[in-house]
């Protein structure tokens, strides 16, 4: 059973791995920090948020100060999807942002009985309905039965 955990990550409850929802890249132990399986880049925030008023004239320009703020971009090593962008002071350890209790997750889904990829949505409202099946399935639909596969 695969549970979509974020826009780009799912947890495979059978293998207990973090998996890229786009390309099936394996980020590691689902009981651990998915970031350990990512590629990371220390982005100068001025490259993302361009100045609106001239930086050669002014200290404050709409662009973050790189001495205060960095953007850590976390990429999937296989498909290059940016799965997280974290704003941090220079040198600050990246945040371990999610740690899940896999036994409890499994228990809850077993009790629920549904297929997470079919029943998880973006919330109430018609336009929040979503197809949260893994995208690598639609690339090769014959390859997956959407059910537990014998790994």
């Amino acid at each position, binding site marked *: 059973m695969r549970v979509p955990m974020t826009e780009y990550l799912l947890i495979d409850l059978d293998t207990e791995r973090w998996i890229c929802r786009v390309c099936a890249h394996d980020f590691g132990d689902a009981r651990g920090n998915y970031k350990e399986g990512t590629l990371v880049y220390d982005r100068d925030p001025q490259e993302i948020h*361009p100045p609106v008023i001239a930086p050669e004239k002014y200290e404050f320009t709409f662009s973050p100060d790189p001495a205060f703020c960095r953007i850590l971009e976390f990429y999937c090593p296989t498909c290059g*999807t940016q799965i997280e962008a974290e704003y941090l002071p220079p040198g600050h350890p990246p945040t371990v942002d*999610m740690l899940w209790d896999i036994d409890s997750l499994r228990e809850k889904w077993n009790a629920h009985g549904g297929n997470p990829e079919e029943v998880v949505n973006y919330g109430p409202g018609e336009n929040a309905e979503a197809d949260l099946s893994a995208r690598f399935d639609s690339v090769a639909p014959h390859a997956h039965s959407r059910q537990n596969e014998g790994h």
Partner: protein
Amino acid sequence: MTLTTDKFVPTSGNADASQLLTDQEQQWVDKFMDETTLFLGPDPAIMRTHEIMPRTAYEEECIAQGIDPLEVDRIRKRLAGALDEAFEMCESMGAAPGAKWADLSCAVYTAEGDVTYLSNRGVIAFSAVLHHPIRYIMKNWKDEPTVGINPGDGFFHNDSRYGMVHNTDQSMLVPVMRDGIIIAWVGATIHEGENGACEPGGMPSGSESPFDDGLRASPIKIVEKGHLRRDLLTFLQHSTRDPKLMLADIKVKMGATRRIMDTVDRLIDEVGQETFVASLRVTVEDVETEVRRRIAELPDGTVTFNQFVDSTLKENILIKFACKITVTGERMIIDLTGTGPEILNRALNSPLASTKSFMSQAVLSYWWPDLPRSTGALSPIEIITEEHTWADAGYDAPVGQSLQASFRGFSALQSAFAKMQFSSPQKYSNVVAPWFNQINDFLWGGTTQNGEQVGNLCADLNGMGGGAKAFRDGENAVAPLFCAMADLGEQEVMEEEVPFLQLVSKRLVRDNQGFGKFRGGMGYEMMVASRGTPSWGFMTVTSGSKFSSVPGMFGGYGCPTYPLAMVKNINIYDIIKKDPSQFNLSMERVMNEQPFAGGDYQSGHMGLQFDVAKEGELYMIAQGAGGGYGDVLERDPELVVTDLELDRISAHVATNIYGVVWEADTFVVHEEKTNLLRAQMRQDRISRGKPYKEFVAEFVQEEPPKDLLYYGSWGQDNNEELLATHWGKIEPERVKGKIKDLPLIMVPDRRVLKISKLEARVRELEQKYGEETVHKS
């Protein structure tokens, strides 16, 4: 700081029995202490808890007579109607600018002060914090012979140390009584603004002591048996810059609470006192039960979301707001350990109750907006904080701009929830990226064209950009995080009352977006200049000029940073009178082209203490954007060129951030070239990204950069160890330790620092050129 003694506790083991008090003696001591309490300050037993009260014996009795859920629902709906009516009374009659745009709320409380139901519109946090003052009144004034509580009484307070979002707000709390017993409370709270603080408008960014924060009203009985007490009213009027506002809005709140009371009286006549009391109580309890059930629906685990705030509102620093939320079954623990220490001479600190009030705001507006808005919503959630951090300020810390910390309490909960609820099959709200969380706005004060003294703020703080949702862009300038249905106000109406014009208003600033697959709602710029006033000034009170105030979600980017821009020493009205073509104003053009000769063009961070604004000097800011959602390279190219065509993004952003290729004159997307460019950009990511372990080894440092004035834990492995910058001497030094071991943290006056630097330079030059000068001190 409640000055009472602890009961005498014998020391263990070898205590001398002759030192123990008999029961009789202990009673005498207690009685003596009760009668001679020096000062009834904010009571920690009241201020540090947010749980609902246990059922009273009377509530038990009422509930024992049986509960009919349909009748409870009917009672709630009747109350909701009355509260919405009272809300509209305040909105249409209130004198405070805030009242006119929904910056208020009305509520019904149980006898012990738990919020049972809130007006559908307005600021949830306002009413959600008022269980504190009600408990204070019940504990201290009910049986106090010089005060007492009688039908028709009304209590006023504004000081957030007694339970209020911040000191600009003023409450009216009125008991519902039957046969001498208090069976409920009704209340109205309005963001009044002016409160006599060291700067006009009630939210002083320049506050350096609690006594700079303005009016310090603990709960006082301003209305006695239906009559407004003239002596106390005069005192309150005399304590602020706007006596008319004080009088008008106390009367408005009296009227609004009277209206709620009419419905309450009729309801009690119809359903009986017991049913009424029981329905208030079970609503609070039911919400608590439902919240536990909803927590249990979330996956068990821990989500951590740290925020870094870049300003004391006087100088740029970096202070952390740490937050770790753990769900285990139906338990949820919010742990703020790691949050930076309070700064004892800066305005950014927040009392714990104010921080929690914005957690209620997040829960009731962004987690579970369908719940009856009750104290029961936050009650079952455990919250861990350390007193004397900036999110849990001590009694002696200034709190004039407590929103700096308390809004972070909101953002912590809102942002973490996207991760907590994503995998949950049952959702009560949409998955959303962080809402903008600063009140980018002008506060103002001085003498109006009508000769009145005023101090208040523009409605534009209500134009916060919404966070992107998982399936659509965030809405531009849509609503403040604290009020889903607020208004930006009618500028023309305001201009009749205040002596300044918004020369530019509500024009979206290009690239002011949280980029993403779905982008955050954009913010607009505003430009003001005073006109026709003998004395006027502006202030701004926010952070986020060096470090983005909100990040994005799931790969989306956050908002940019926001400068304050000013052109002093010009009169824009003379300039455009002479040459109307100069009425082509934007922050970008004015600051970059510097078109007005003789103007002093300045940019600064968004903490501007009251600044005298001469006629026609320009002050310019922009509203903030909400966070983006998802990977920018997944954004529909059509959405990108639409924004481009509307000049909402630059070609630079369309190409370099979004990776879109288009036909310059037609804005038609080149699908194939876009795909190629995006594929290349993904490849570039893969080649420049470093494996996590390798990256961490290079990037992570033992400590913050030496010159960064940093406050809070570093990393998350040892959150109890806080770092701070301490000026024991002239040069700052970094100190480390648990909050109780840190020295008191103060920041020196930046002008003093500048002068000492300049003096050192003078000495250096004198030495260099051999000039003999005697410096007397």
